[in-house]
């Protein structure tokens, strides 16, 4: 029996299996175990969470392979890791390490200011950030098997993730009402591949899973993003920058499953301790906004 590996179906399929779940940023094997114990459906292995990357400044790169391998050893759930935008060699290294998903991420300093990674060339699947439908479809065109909002990472402020999710959803709704003869011009306007635009019109959603990311800090934030149409949640700094990571992580997992039940949300939101300190987006200079990275 001949087997085929690294196909579009298995790449996209893993993201389907993550739906309705929470993917948590972790920097140590201990944090990874807490995340798994709390019910994370995957972890993102990092050297620093986005809030610390933002505070440290300088060039942020792929994590040390030792950090990633130790986290892979610590848990049985999928482990993701980040490569810089356009840095296909970091991606090759992550694939060689055997990570389950690569995030070509604006949280790290871009390695290429014009081109993203050709993700079709890899057996390992990729997730990419997007602020609007055109950006999402460009990334899918390059081979991304999963999309997430960019939000504004490391801020504990959900406002940008909300903006990006609403934007994608409203563009999809607009597209569904267009007659076929207007699709090419729509594709031109949003700078997206025509075939994918046609597919979105037929499906009424993106052709891959679409998660929310960037600034989610509370169970209510997670449920808000789910009600706006997210398929699942990434929490970066929000868990391990809070005062009681285990409790908050469990609460966000429960809120992501029961996002339409306010009485469950009320229950799990009780006594969570301090959330991570938040940042007002207006205080971040335009050139320091991570969401502006990506083309």
């Amino acid at each position, binding site marked *: *029996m*001949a*087997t*085929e*590996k*690294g*196909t579009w*179906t*298995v790449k996209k*399929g*893993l993201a*389907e*299996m*993550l*739906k*309705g*779940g929470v993917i948590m940023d972790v920097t140590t094997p201990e944090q990874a175990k807490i995340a*798994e114990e*709390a*019910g*994370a*459906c*995957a972890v993102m292995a990092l050297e620093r969470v986005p809030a610390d990357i933002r505070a440290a400044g300088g060039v942020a790169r792929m994590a040390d392979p030792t950090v990633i391998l130790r986290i892979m050893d610590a848990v*049985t*759930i*999928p482990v993701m890791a980040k490569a810089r935008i356009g840095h296909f060699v970091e991606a090759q290294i992550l*694939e060689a390490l*055997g*990570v*389950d*998903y690569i995030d070509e991420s604006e949280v790290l300093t871009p390695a290429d200011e014009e081109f993203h990674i050709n993700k079709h060339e890899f*057996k*390992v*699947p990729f997730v990419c950030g997007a602020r609007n439908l055109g950006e999402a479809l460009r990334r899918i065109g390059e081979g991304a098997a999963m999309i997430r909002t960019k939000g504004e990472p490391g801020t504990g402020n959900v406002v940008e993730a909300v903006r990006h999710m609403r934007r994608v959803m409203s563009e999809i709704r607009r597209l569904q009402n267009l007659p076929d003869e207007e699709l090419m011009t729509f594709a031109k306007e949003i700078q997206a591949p025509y075939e994918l635009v046609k597919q979105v019109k037929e499906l009424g959603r993106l052709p891959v899973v679409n998660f929310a990311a960037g600034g989610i800090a509370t169970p209510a934030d997670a449920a808000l993003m789910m009600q706006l149409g997210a398929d699942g949640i990434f929490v970066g700094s929000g868990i391990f920058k809070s005062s009681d990571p285990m409790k908050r992580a*469990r609460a966000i*997992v*429960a809120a*992501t*499953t*029961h996002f339409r*039940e306010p009485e469950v949300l009320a229950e799990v939101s009780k006594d969570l301790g301090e959330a991570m300190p938040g940042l007002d987006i207006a205080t971040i200079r335009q050139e320091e906004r991570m969401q502006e990275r990506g083309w």
Partner: protein
Amino acid sequence: MKIGVLAMQGAFREHIASLAALGVEGVEIRRERQLEGIDGLIIPGGESTTIGKLMVDFNLLEPIRELAAAGMPLFGTCAGMVLLARDIIGSDQPRLGLMHVSVQRNAFGRQVDSFEVDLEIPVLGEEPFHAVFIRAPYLERVEPPAESLATFMGKTVMARQGNLLATAFHPELTNDLRVHRYFLEMIK
């Protein structure tokens, strides 16, 4: 006929679409009260540790065990197979633990080893079933009354025990509806 699809986390949307393609209503199950009035239950792929913990926190393990004991058919795919197994090798994670099988999680390797293959499944007829395996488990041991329905590389990847059915692969990710149809026939 109404089939519940456990919707704690994972690929429940795809199972509901497969059921719809067979003209059967699928409903999302997140709370105990939603189990009322269903004729069968699908436990989808996803992360078995996540789904199991949420089933504990929201009190679904015991009610589902009772329905299964009363004869209601259950069908688990991938994580669902893990949750149906009595023995999960090297893990004490929460589970339904109903099938007399021993399951190895992530048995074929990590995501880069996930694969598609044409599988011989005698109970579905002669034509092979195109099976999608994603960080899939297999059954290391299958003891009566459980029986193996399909193997790959010498390991059981589909098994049945009376009203319980489990696959290591994802029939909900392809358009071949034979596994779902086989499950629905267990209900009639």
